[in-house]
């Protein structure tokens, strides 16, 4: 079979969520088996920014009921080193004489100038098949997430759209009053597809009880004494970044509702994700209008989850 997604011909309907699968690290862990059994029909990179980012202070993880709260902070090498170092390695992993796996590069910029530079760089490199915009970043003027504000989102997409002829996917945030309005705005700005849901904003406090164990041993980090940025919060946030995003099966029902709402409102393809663990979960998202399904946190539990989910999908 073959699935058409924005003109890309994909072997099946399952891809990865950005930031949930590092193909270069996976090749180191699994060797040639990764390429031979590559689990995704297209590969989405982690978020690339113009400048390198180290990411947030640890701890970065908290195990929640049926899910994971993460505060990773988008660590990446920056655009220049992504292009110079990662792109050749990714191209080699994704190459296939019959059907190469298209590379979708996810980018985030805090200004229209940064975003334009990122999108232009993607346009210039043939190894990149499509671009995904991470718009879950604050507007420097309003402090609101660009992706949560339909007018700001439409303006950003309109600004970067002419910088590339490649398919442009907008990754929508679920942390907004009306995700379908945001999807419509992305479409109006010229997006070729939307993907959702990103993680739900979440936080965790350092456990008070002795013997309480999150993913860690319950003690706050020794060299990272943090006070809460919010004076109303009298406990210490567990995550080094203060707050994070919830993913995993805990958000699956939310994802289904938001994907359904978006698919009913736009005509462009929708990539649905959020807590998908089985073929049945993927089928649910397709049934409410998704063209592709992305697997994220489930790949942490099993790197081959994407292949397992895709196997019985069509």
């Amino acid at each position, binding site marked *: 079979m073959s699935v058409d997604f924005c003109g890309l011909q994909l072997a099946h309907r399952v891809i990865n969520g950005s930031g*949930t*699968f*590092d193909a*270069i*690290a*996976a090749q*180191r*862990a*699994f*060797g040639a*088996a*990764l390429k*031979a*059994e590559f689990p995704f029909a297209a590969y989405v990179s982690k978020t690339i920014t113009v400048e390198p980012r*180290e*990411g947030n202070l*640890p*701890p*970065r*993880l908290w*195990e*929640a*009921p*049926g*899910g*994971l709260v*993460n505060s*990773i902070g988008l*660590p990446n090498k920056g655009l220049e080193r992504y292009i110079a170092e990662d792109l050749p390695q990714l191209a080699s992993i994704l190459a296939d004489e019959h059907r190469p796996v298209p590379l979708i590069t996810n980018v985030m910029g805090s200004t229209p100038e940064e975003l334009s530079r990122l999108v232009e760089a993607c346009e210039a490199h043939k190894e990149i098949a499509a671009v995904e915009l991470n718009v879950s970043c604050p507007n420097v003027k309003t402090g609101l997430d660009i992706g949560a504000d339909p007018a700001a989102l439409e303006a950003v997409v309109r600004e970067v759209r002419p910088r590339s002829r490649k398919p442009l996917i907008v990754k929508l945030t679920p942390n907004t009053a009306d995700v379908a309005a945001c999807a419509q705005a992305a479409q109006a700005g010229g997006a070729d597809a939307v993907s959702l849901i990103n993680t739900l904003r979440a936080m965790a406090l350092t456990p008070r009880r002795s013997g309480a*164990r*999150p*993913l*860690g*041993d*319950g*003690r*706050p*980090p*020794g*060299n*990272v004494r943090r006070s809460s940025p919010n004076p109303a919060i009298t406990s210490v946030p567990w995550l080094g970044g203060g707050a994070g995003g919830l993913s*995993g*099966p805990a958000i699956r029902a939310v994802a289904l509702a938001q994907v359904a709402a978006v698919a009913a409102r736009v005509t462009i393809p929708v990539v649905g994700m959020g807590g998908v663990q089985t073929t049945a979960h993927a089928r649910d998202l397709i049934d409410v209008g998704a063209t592709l399904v992305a697997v994220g*946190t489930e*790949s*942490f*539990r*099993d*790197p*081959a989850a994407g*292949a*397992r989910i895709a196997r019985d999908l069509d």
Partner: protein
Amino acid sequence: MSEAPFGRRLLTVTGMDELGSYRVLRVADPDGPDPAPGQFAMLATAERWGGGEDERPYLPRAFSIARWGEGEAHFLLEDVGPGTNRLCELEASDRLWVLGPLGTGFTPSRDGRRALLVGGGVGIAPLAILQDVLEGQSTVLLGFRDAGRAVGAALLGGAQVATDDGSVGYDGRVTDLLTTELDSDPWATVYACGPAAMLEMVRAMCAERSVPAQLALEAGMACGFGACFGCVVPRRSGGYLRVCVEGPVIDAAELDLVDEHAGAPT
């Protein structure tokens, strides 16, 4: 280091042995690749993984491979949270999801230095498989909280034991035993695994005496293969190292400080 088969594998538990306060989980893995000492696996039970305290566990848990041979992998468990609690319930013929072997293990020194193995608590696990593969004599120093845990020293051969409460062996810290050893003969490589506070003392002591040290770190992990970037520790030269791929065994010279950071997976 060994590469892991791609994807988690459903293996069968062959036994669960009591070892004082600990359990040794034995798993049949006749087709698995030989792990390097210090490599680890992500474990989750096939049945009822979830629904424990606080509706957890959800993620698999990382465990050093403690011993390997005759088609079996051994893991050392201590029941300290919902993940380890469920794993400790396993019995022979139960099924277990296993991803691994993963990570970068110990690199046995080839410069003729003697091997000093320093372990604390459940962190003694990777030193057992290391002792199995090291050629020649190794000196083993193990520290435990109390007598129940000190029974775990039987996992290695010929260990000198220290306990915090003085109930078994030397009354005090394992790092006191290490001081004595390094004072008598500093031509050594230290291989250590244990609580962060112990590893930090080992790191500082070895740095001061210019003794090479390889530290097996522990961190909460979501994936174990470099995908989530959740298990990082600060690197001396700046930025972070992922404990799962650049570690878990990290050259002490790469670290400024072994910190509690993300704590131990439970």
